[in-house]
């Protein structure tokens, strides 16, 4: 039996996890954008689906794809605000997003994602672990290492 044969029909994942993924998308964006983010995420997942090597941890994988899609939307929204002009409140969801982003900008992308999930999206370590596909302990480590790096930069 080929590896691809072990993948369940995609729609069974949508039926099993779609509701909680919508809640997750809402938490990471807002009510208006959540369905668009989730549709985009599920289409991304569908494009990648046949290339998965096995059918394990599919729920955590879908959480990761949804998270990435939501983070991409945040990045896109930031780029849509021209820097010369005052930020338009309708476009910018979090007013302190810019300050937070410039503070974490020097860090590696994985460290930035960990800090966003912890402090912007306010996820606990268990949920972060599901999103990042790590253990809760590894998620905690990532956040504390990133925080330590930031602190060292400030006090240096």
């Amino acid at each position, binding site marked *: 039996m080929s590896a691809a*044969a072990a993948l369940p029909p*995609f729609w069974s994942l949508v039926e099993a996890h779609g*509701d909680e993924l*919508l809640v997750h998308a809402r938490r990471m964006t807002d009510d208006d954008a959540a369905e668009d983010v989730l549709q985009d995420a599920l289409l991304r997942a*569908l494009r990648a689906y*046949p290339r998965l090597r096995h059918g394990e941890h599919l729920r955590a994988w879908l959480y990761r794809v949804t998270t990435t899609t939501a983070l991409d939307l945040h990045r896109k929204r930031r780029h849509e605000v021209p820097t010369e002009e005052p930020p338009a409140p309708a476009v910018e969801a979090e007013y302190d997003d810019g300050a937070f982003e410039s503070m974490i900008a020097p860090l590696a992308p994985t460290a930035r994602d960990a800090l966003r999930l912890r402090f912007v999206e306010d996820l606990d370590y268990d949920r972060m672990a599901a999103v990042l596909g790590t253990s809760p302990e590894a998620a905690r480590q990532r956040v504390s290492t990133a925080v330590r790096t930031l602190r060292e930069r400030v006090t240096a």
Partner: protein
Amino acid sequence: MSPLSDTFLDRLASAAVEEGLADAVYTTLSTPLGALLVVQGERGVLRIAFEDEPEDATLAGVAAGVGPRIVRSDRELAATRDTLSAYLEGDDDTLGLPVDLSLAHGPFRRAVLDTLHREVQRGEVITYGELAKEAGSPRAVRAVGSACATNPVPIVVPCHRVLPASHKLGNYGGGPARKRALLTLEGAPWRD
């Protein structure tokens, strides 16, 4: 937790189909033969399952055969649904649906089912022996029997029109009651 709306699911499935991302699309519909699960690929109907067959297992079989990108959409299969319903409710005499025999196992079974689909029309019956001859292997009567028993697309590929030499009802994957109902609907002759 708020469930995903039907509108959302419809939109998602249609976007997937439009982008060419779906290996197959499925729907369920209720008919005089009970609920049917219908799975369709780009080239035609891949699989029809009666309600006695567990849906999960049927869809897992389709995924293993043609790929796992399977989505559900009543809307994308509206034309197929209408055609099947009209035929099974007796409103239309023709069942002109294209089939894709990818899920039939092996070239001989595929040839048998293809011959049956093309040559045995509504109102006609054929015996297992005659069908073996038509498919080019007159001695393979038993193999014709197993081709019918494992027919992935019953109703559209009309295994219900295949009878034993006695012209009695004989076996049917969906059970003898459904075979009788289909032959009655089609006005075909068999010996009770």
